[in-house]
């Protein structure tokens, strides 16, 4: 019962909505101003209403049940919903007491609007629920009071299986003991912390497998004291990536360490930051004597080298540079290196390749080349000398050998003239023998000279029309053709590439041979033919004369080789040797076919497109 006075003031001016209702009729008996303000009804309007009227339709039954069963003198209850005059619903907590008001049994109610608080809570739950991290709330006793969906999926438990359990359920066996200690420490000094940095943490999945995790801890203070909100991040992926990264890094480092080229990074203050095995070997120093040492301390004087100034330039301008550098070791030895300088953020990266060997080879090669040039010069000079010697030899032969011969014939003839009247036939014959022999010797000398000239004279190669050549050759032999009956069968000849005068000499020799060895025939047949082959022409001069025995075929082309006696067929035996030499100098081949008394055929080849092809 509210008396006028202090209690009424307390009732009327209470910031919380308050009322007294009739337990029997549920009618409002008294309401305070705060209630009027909160619910929108005037006091008079309230007095016309019952408790049922400020409930959403659905909640009325709950209310009636509660009222019926309400026996306690005092009640604090939450979870109620009230409907305001404008129809909107608010969440409320209420405190109620039994009271006798003006003789009527009723209850006095104080209402706390928790709509705001509830929404905040729901938002909190929503945030927790939708967090990508697993979130576990435990109380000071280590009992799990809240988990989110991610926790369920991460650990494989449903939330009902977790809530009320010790947090231990989520820890691998080996962490359980230390965890208690950590738990105590946390509560001694509850502040947010991250516990993955110091060591690797693992969670235990329902199926027994371990999950690498990172955990953030936050103390939460609520009515029940301090709880721990653990935010758990599954770092399986990250760990894999990290391991992969470590592997890759190791791989690169191994590659760098063991690669054939030297690899080093020079810092911007010219210290060795990194150096691989090869680079250390190249520098003839242990890695530890290099790393973090200054270049000028390791190799005093290096600052004066071109390499060092290029390095500084590369550092300053950030422009890559390549150079060949002769590195001088402290003991004075030198090696050549190919250096690739590449600017990097921490300084300059230098790739170095030992090219001492190549340089040496190069120099040797240069030396050889020079030597070769000298050698060629020397040999050429020798060859020139030899040629000159040969020339002067031929000259001597030509000049000096002929002179005594001329003298023999000359004086023999003078002698013969002087004493001819007293000579008998026999002695006259002897004189003629001497004369003939000297003539013959003169011919031999001439032929030999022409043969040696054929070898020495420079070739004067041009397009040669063989039709003309053959025509001229036959013309030259006119004397020998007198009083002979010869049937000529001459093919249309191609134009070839060669020395015209030499080729003419070859044809003169071949044709004169054919003419000579058919002299006993009443009718000589001489065929001059050509047969084109793939890359060459095959030329031939065939006759129906004396021929030869094939077993001597290879002797035909030798100097002074003859298959017939001088008395049978005159000649010096140089003609075919000359032909062979001429054709050989044109890169062709010569051969012969024949049969005794059935004629001979001489063949030679010339390249279709000249010597060069």
């Amino acid at each position, binding site marked *: 019962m509210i008396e006028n006075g202090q209690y009424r003031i307390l009732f009327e001016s209470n910031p919380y909505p308050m009322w007294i209702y009739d337990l029997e009729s549920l009618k409002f008996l008294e309401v305070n101003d705060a209630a009027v303000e909160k619910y929108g009804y005037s006091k008079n309007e309230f007095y016309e209403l019952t408790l049922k009227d400020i409930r959403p339709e659905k909640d009325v039954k709950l209310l009636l049940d509660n009222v019926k069963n309400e026996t306690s003198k005092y009640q604090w209850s939450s979870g109620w919903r009230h409907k305001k005059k404008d129809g909107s619903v608010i969440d409320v907590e209420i405190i109620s007491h039994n009271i006798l008001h003006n003789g009527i049994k009723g209850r006095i109610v104080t209402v706390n609007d928790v709509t705001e608080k509830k929404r905040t809570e729901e938002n909190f739950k929503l945030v927790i629920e939708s967090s990508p991290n697993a979130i576990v709330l435990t109380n000071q006793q280590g009992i799990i009071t809240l988990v989110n969906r991610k926790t369920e999926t991460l650990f494989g438990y449903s939330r009902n299986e977790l809530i009320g359990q010790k947090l231990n359920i989520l820890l691998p066996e080996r962490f359980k003991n230390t965890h208690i200690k950590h738990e105590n420490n946390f509560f001694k000094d509850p502040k947010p912390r991250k516990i993955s940095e110091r060591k690797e943490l693992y969670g235990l999945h329902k199926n027994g497998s371990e999950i690498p995790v990172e955990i953030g801890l936050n103390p939460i203070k609520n009515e029940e004291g301090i709880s721990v909100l653990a935010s758990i991040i599954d770092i399986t992926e990250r760990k894999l990536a990290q391991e992969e990264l470590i592997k890759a890094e190791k791989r690169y480092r191994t590659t760098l360490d063991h690669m054939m080229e030297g690899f080093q990074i020079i810092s911007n203050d010219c210290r060795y930051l990194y150096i691989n095995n090869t680079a250390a070997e190249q520098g003839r120093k242990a890695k530890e004597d290099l790393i973090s040492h200054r270049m000028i301390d390791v190799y005093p004087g290096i600052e004066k080298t071109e390499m060092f100034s290029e390095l500084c330039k590369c550092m300053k301008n950030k422009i890559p540079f390549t150079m060949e550098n002769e590195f001088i070791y402290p003991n004075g030895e030198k090696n050549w290196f190919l250096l690739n300088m590449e600017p990097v953020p921490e300084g300059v990266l230098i790739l170095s390749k030992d090219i001492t060997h190549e340089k040496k080879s190069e120099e040797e090669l240069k030396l050889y080349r020079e030597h070769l040039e000298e050698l060629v010069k020397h040999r050429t000079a020798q060859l020139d000398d030899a040629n000159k010697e040969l020339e002067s030899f*031929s*000259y001597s032969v*030509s*000049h*000096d050998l*002929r*002179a005594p*011969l*001329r*003298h023999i*014939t*000359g*004086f*023999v*003839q*003078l002698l013969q003239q002087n004493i001819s009247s007293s000579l008998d036939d026999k002695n006259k014959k002897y004189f003629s023998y001497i004369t003939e022999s*000297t*003539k013959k*010797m*003169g011919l031999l000398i*001439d032929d030999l*000279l022409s043969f040696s000239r054929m070898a020495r004279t420079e070739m004067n190669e041009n397009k040669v029309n063989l039709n003309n050549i053959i025509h001229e050759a036959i013309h030259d032999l006119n004397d020998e053709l007198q009083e002979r009956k010869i049937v000529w069968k001459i093919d249309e000849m191609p134009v070839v590439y060669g020395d015209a005068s030499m080729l003419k000499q070859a044809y003169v020799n071949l044709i004169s041979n054919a003419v000579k060895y058919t002299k006993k025939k009443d009718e000589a047949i001489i065929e001059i033919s050509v047969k084109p082959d793939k890359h060459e022409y095959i030329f031939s001069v065939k006759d129906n004369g004396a021929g030869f025995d094939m077993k001597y075929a290879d002797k035909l082309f030798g100097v002074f080789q003859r298959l017939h006696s001088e008395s049978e067929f005159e000649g010096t035996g140089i003609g075919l040797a000359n032909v062979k030499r001429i054709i050989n100098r044109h890169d062709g081949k010569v051969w012969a076919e024949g049969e005794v008394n059935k004629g001979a055929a001489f063949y030679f080849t010339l390249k279709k497109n000249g010597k060069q092809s």
Partner: protein
Amino acid sequence: MNELKRILLAEDDERDIELTMAALEEFNLANEVVVVKDGEEALDYLYYRGEFANRLQGNPAVILLDIKMPKVTGLEVLKQIKSDDNLKIIPTVILTSSREEKDLVEGYSLGVNAYVVKPVDFEEFIRAVKELGLFWAVINEPPLISIKKNKL
């Protein structure tokens, strides 16, 4: 034979000299032949030097030069003759055993008037020498200046 002019024969080989002389004798050309044994003597003759310092004035009607001679070769003598305004008008013949083309080419490029290869056959040789002697000493009229000097 008044028309007969002096012939300068430069030849180092005694036998060749004798054969040449024999050949020239056949046509009675031998009398006026001056024989020198090498190129140096030939030049001495032409320039009135040494043993020829006091010889009769005048250039020979024809010069027969062997190529291969001691001291100074026939080609060198030829070169000197053909580079001397006074001598270059003298008909000069190379008479040699050499058939080498380079000798021939060099001879002609130095301005030789004839190049005769001595034949091995004596009859041919006689014929050649005779023809030379006749052609140059008898038939061929030397340039006027040469005649004038000869008459001095």
